[in-house]
Every structure is written in C-alpha cells, then in structure tokens.
C-alpha cells in the first residue's frame, strides 16, 4: 500500500501548534504588554514587579516552572509549525531539511528551557 495510506505524523506538530495558538491568543497580548512595556518602565505597575527576588520566587515554585515551560514551549512550537509551513510554501529548502530546522530548533529550545528551569532550583 505504501505512502498513499501511511498515517501522517503531522498531528504531532499540529496539536502543540493549536494549543500554542490558543494560548497566545488568550494571554499573548497581556503578557507582551506587561513584560515589554508596563513592568520595565513601571507604567501602570509598581517598580520591582519583575525584580530578581520576585522572578526567582515565581520560577522556583513548581507551578511557576510549569507556567513558564508551558508558555515558552507552546509559543515556540506554535511558531515553529507556522514558520515551517511558510518556508515550505516559499520553497526555501527541502521538506525534510526545513522540518529538522524548524521543529529541531523548537525541540532544542524547549530542552534549554527545561534545563534553565531546573538550574533555577526550587
């Protein structure tokens, strides 16, 4: 039967793409506003919102780690799928090469996230 009836592995990447997209749609704008504008410039939020002490406390908490891993990971995998498909549309390279570059980067950066979160300690 061969390739014609072989199940695609696309769902492996499509579900994280979907979850990441939904998450980004729901919390993305607020997060960018907070971490990119309000907190660094203390506009609408008191200074020290993202101080080292508070950030450490958050990242040391198991739920905090989960949130950081979830947000960073899902955002990365969402972006990776879209970037892969767009590069494929643009004929930027062979399909397999593009998959390795895009999904490989997302995978590598996810591992880095896990490592950094563990390094922060509890």
């Amino acid at each position, binding site marked *: 039967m061969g390739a014609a009836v072989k199940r695609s592995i696309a769902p492996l990447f499509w579900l994280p793409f*979907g979850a990441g997209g939904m998450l980004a749609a*729901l919390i993305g704008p607020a997060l960018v506003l907070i971490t*990119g504008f309000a907190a660094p410039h203390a506009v609408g939020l008191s200074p020290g919102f993202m101080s080292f002490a508070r950030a450490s406390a958050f990242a040391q908490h198991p739920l905090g780690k989960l949130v950081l891993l979830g947000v960073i990971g899902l955002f990365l995998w*969402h972006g990776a799928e*879209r*970037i892969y498909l*767009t590069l494929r549309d643009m004929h930027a390279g062979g399909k397999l090469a593009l998959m390795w570059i895009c999904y490989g980067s997302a995978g590598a950066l996810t591992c880095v996230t896990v490592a950094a979160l563990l390094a*922060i300690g509890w």
Partner: protein
Amino acid sequence: MSGARPYIRPIEPLWWARPPYLAYTLREATGVAVAGYAVVLLAGVISLASGEGAYQAWLDFLRSPWSLALHLLFLIGILAHVWTWFAIMPKTMPRLVIGDRVVPQSWITAAGLAVAIASFIVILLLAKWVQP
C-alpha cells in the same frame, strides 16, 4: 484519444507573495512574533538561572529602546494573530448546532474574540493585584 498531449503549467513559485495568498502568508508570519516573544522570555529564564547580575542585564535590555521597538512589533504581530486565529477557528470545528439552527461561523469568531478580550483584562487585573 489521438493527439492527446495534456500540457502541465508550472506553478508560480511566488504565489504566496501575491493576492489573494499574501493575506494568508501574513497571517502565518504572525507565528514569528509568537516564537520571537517566547525567545525573549527564554532569555529571561536563562538569565534568571545565571544569577542576579545576568538577570539585571536582561531587565536593562527590556528597558532599552531596542526592546521597546521589538515588543511593539511583537504586540502588533500577536494582535494580528488573535484576530486571524478566531477568524479561522470555526473552520476547524464541525458545524455547531444549537437548538434547531446552525450557529453562524461569525458568531463563533465573535465569541472567541470576546473570551480573548476578557482574558486580556483579567490578566492585567491579576498583575495589578499581585504587584509589590
């Protein structure tokens, strides 16, 4: 069929850059903003793991005009993502039937956007609530 010699036209390689597909390509490009922002967050997590000095450097970067411009681009990209995401969302669902009527796809989009706006407000309020 005598004389049958079908002619196969080559596909236009830049189809993605021209209307009506350009809008689709721009929608997909919002993924760059989402992933890009995640990378900035990741840099923050790494700096946090590297100690107070490194973390302060990340905060200093966030205060820089470069970061301001970058986050403005992220914001525009992510807002475009929000808009186009809920526009396409109804296509990924079976036809929703409530009572005896099919729910128009525009209603599903509107509901999604409403939830996103509510979520946006809730998070900002949450931030205000937990601020030092």
